[in-house]
């Protein structure tokens, strides 16, 4: 069991800034995120896109913002459970909550802050009628352990970075890699596209474009995929490709997911909170901050998430330290005392006579 003061669900910008604000109040945080890395949408969807409305940053790349937020909260030593989705929440007799992930990892905290953005990112599944019956029987939407593909025949579908990068990586692992895409053009980093071209020329990757996987064949497990290849505008040919694994990589789309079943009041795919006070949900002790919440006048902006996180931490302090006095301190005055023993503070002014 992982225990902490504030359990944050979602390691995007709002969740990461919560760690800093909580740290100033000497509250420790642990974050859960379905993605394998911190940053949420900023690192998953648009790390290379500039953001222009972060106060004091005329321009910052979404990926750099994530790095800065991680650096800012580092001294408060946040814990992370990454690559796991928060699945269930149970209120305990002592008033704390236990949150369990889809992999069974348990977390306990008196305060839960849902900073889940648009939800957890789920793979987008191609529209192949029988695909669900082959999931984990040869069809995988996310590559977790590349070793399972060693010396196997693998078919990858998709035209973005992940399809390109995994084709490159698996060309050294699998016995055969076939990459199938609806068009001949790929959207990815230039060097990934060039590398696939090179591997194709060397015969290490078989490229089939423009084409689509339209069906799956097998008894109990995947044996082949049916490919429809467009030879020219009007002639399609269909044929089977024998394979052990089929990996469709069509990106991820966020879904509110299991959080929707936690008994929270939901409106417009978001969690209703009390914006007049502290962004608490209808369940005392559970807060929702950032893009995941809604209230009259809500704006889904990173800077609004920062504000919401800050107010929420004050409320969390009162829950965790009932009756204990506290007044807001400015970091300029009080400095920042890290849980790792570091201290940041303003340099002292010099007091000296001028003769």
């Amino acid at each position: 069991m992982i225990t902490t003061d504030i359990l944050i669900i979602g390691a995007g910008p709002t969740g990461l800034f919560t760690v800093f604000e909580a740290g100033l109040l000497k509250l420790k945080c642990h974050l859960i995120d379905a993605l394998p890395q911190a940053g949420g949408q900023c690192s998953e969807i648009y790390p290379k896109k500039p953001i222009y409305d972060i106060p004091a940053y005329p321009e910052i790349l979404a990926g750099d913002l994530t790095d800065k937020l991680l650096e800012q909260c580092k001294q408060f030593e946040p814990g992370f459970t990454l690559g796991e989705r928060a699945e269930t929440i149970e209120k305990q007799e002592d008033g704390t909550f236990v949150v369990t992930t889809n992999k069974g990892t348990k977390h306990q905290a008196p305060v839960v802050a849902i900073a889940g953005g648009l939800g957890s990112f789920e793979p987008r599944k191609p529209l192949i009628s029988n695909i669900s019956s082959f999931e984990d029987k040869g069809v995988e939407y996310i590559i977790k352990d590349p070793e399972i593909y060693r010396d196997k025949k693998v078919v990858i579908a998709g035209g973005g970075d992940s399809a390109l990068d995994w084709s490159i990586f698996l060309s050294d692992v699998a016995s055969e890699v076939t990459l199938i895409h609806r068009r001949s053009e790929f959207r990815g980093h230039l060097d990934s596209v060039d590398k696939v071209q090179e591997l194709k020329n060397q015969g290490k990757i078989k490229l089939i474009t423009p084409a689509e996987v339209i069906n799956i064949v097998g008894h109990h497990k995947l044996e082949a995929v049916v490919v429809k290849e467009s030879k020219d505008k009007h002639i399609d040919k269909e044929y089977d490709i024998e394979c052990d694994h089929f990996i469709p990589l069509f990106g991820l789309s966020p879904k509110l997911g299991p959080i929707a079943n936690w008994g929270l009041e939901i409106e417009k795919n978001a969690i209703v909170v009390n914006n007049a006070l502290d962004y608490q949900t209808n369940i005392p002790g559970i807060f929702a901050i950032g893009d995941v919440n809604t209230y009259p006048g809500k704006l889904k902006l990173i800077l609004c998430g920062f504000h919401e996180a800050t107010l929420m931490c004050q409320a969390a302090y009162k829950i965790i330290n009932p009756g204990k006095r506290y007044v807001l301190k400015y970091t300029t005055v009080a400095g920042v005392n890290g849980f790792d023993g570091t201290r940041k503070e303003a340099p002292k002014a010099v007091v000296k006579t001028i003769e």
Partner: protein
Amino acid sequence: MEQDINIKITDRDGVTHEVLAPTDMAMNLMEVVRSYELAPEGTIGICGGMAMCASCQCYVLSETELPEMQDDEEAMLSEAFYVKDNSRLGCQIQMTQEMEGLEVELAPES
């Protein structure tokens, strides 16, 4: 002052809405849909309008002349589902005077 234009949007339940779209607020079709709440929040415009998610895919039903598709829109549509010949990403269609009478249908959620 530029005028609003009349466009017809068929939502994912098949209901057609006649709406007025401003042409002077740099709004795109995806944002018009959101401003009239014709699709639930969180099911459209997920990436915010960067042609990176296809949640605003629509089918263009009228003959209205639209801006040519750019590379990133074409690439995204090549990875999206339920794509037809008349598919476009709403976020890449800026509202202009020339689009008076535009008719579109929202593609299914995926």
